[in-house]
């Protein structure tokens, strides 16, 4: 993938300049912290994207048994969870100065924490099995399961109750009113840029894993 690196550098440079300089809506309580949207939310988008790729490769491994798919799925899960941890940490700092505490009992916070714990379970499961094909099969099945757990935990359950996160607790069709066109101008490039950064890092780590295998 030739275009990943230049496009990633371009989009993230844009994010890190326009993100600070462009005008944002002036809202009470949020103030300038609204700009954290450009950094905090793309972490989660990147995590979801990488974990989706991971479970896709797990599915491929189960169906055709190529060990490369197992390696890829482990690799994507690893980088994806890193982005998830970054999302949690940045969200905690943001919450401290807008909601008042580092951690609230918001369903989205608890859901994403549980989701990450499920993935920690995946890594422990992997490292506890020595036999290569057995490890691949068991952890692949677990991985597909954990991604399908993540969707209700992050996207469905927070909508069923009240959540402090905008766009949750109620009809997602009204999300249009939560973000205006000024924010979108930086937000979407930021999401793509961070996803490409995640792909870049996974590419490097996959090369390393392949070297270790030989």
């Amino acid at each position, binding site marked *: 993938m030739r275009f990943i690196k230049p496009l990633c550098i371009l989009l993230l440079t844009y994010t*890190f300049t326009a993100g*600070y*300089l462009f005008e944002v809506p002036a809202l009470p309580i949020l103030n300038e912290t609204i700009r954290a949207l450009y950094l905090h939310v793309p972490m989660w988008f990147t995590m979801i994207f990488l974990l989706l790729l991971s479970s896709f490769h797990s599915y491929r491994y189960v169906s055709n048994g190529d060990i490369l798919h197992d390696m890829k799925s482990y690799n994507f899960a690893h980088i994806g969870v890193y982005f998830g941890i970054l999302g949690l940490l940045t969200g905690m700092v943001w919450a401290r100065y807008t909601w008042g505490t580092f951690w609230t009992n918001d369903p989205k916070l608890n859901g994403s924490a549980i989701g990450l714990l499920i993935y920690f379970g995946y890594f422990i499961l992997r490292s506890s099995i020595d036999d290569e094909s057995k490890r691949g099969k068991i952890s692949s099945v677990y991985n597909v399961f954990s991604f399908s757990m993540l969707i209700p935990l992050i996207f469905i359950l927070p909508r069923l109750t009240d959540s402090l996160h905008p766009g949750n607790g109620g009809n997602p069709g009204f999300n249009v009113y939560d973000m205006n066109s000024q924010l979108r101008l930086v937000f979407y490039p930021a999401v793509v840029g961070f996803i490409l950064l995640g792909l870049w890092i996974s590419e*490097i780590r996959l*090369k390393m894993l392949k*070297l270790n295998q030989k």
Partner: protein
Amino acid sequence: MMFNFFTLFILLQDVAMADAMRSNGKIFVVVVISLIILFSLFLYLYRIEKKIESIKKNK
């Protein structure tokens, strides 16, 4: 006393300085600092990738 007058004089005068980095509440400084970090991270990733490639070739 002399010093105080001097500082007051400087403060009152509109001295031309490199004001570009100080406008808008000095936000440009933050931009430059984050860009430095971002680009050094990119450079680091790039170098690691090159190193892994060379190890691959030597094997």
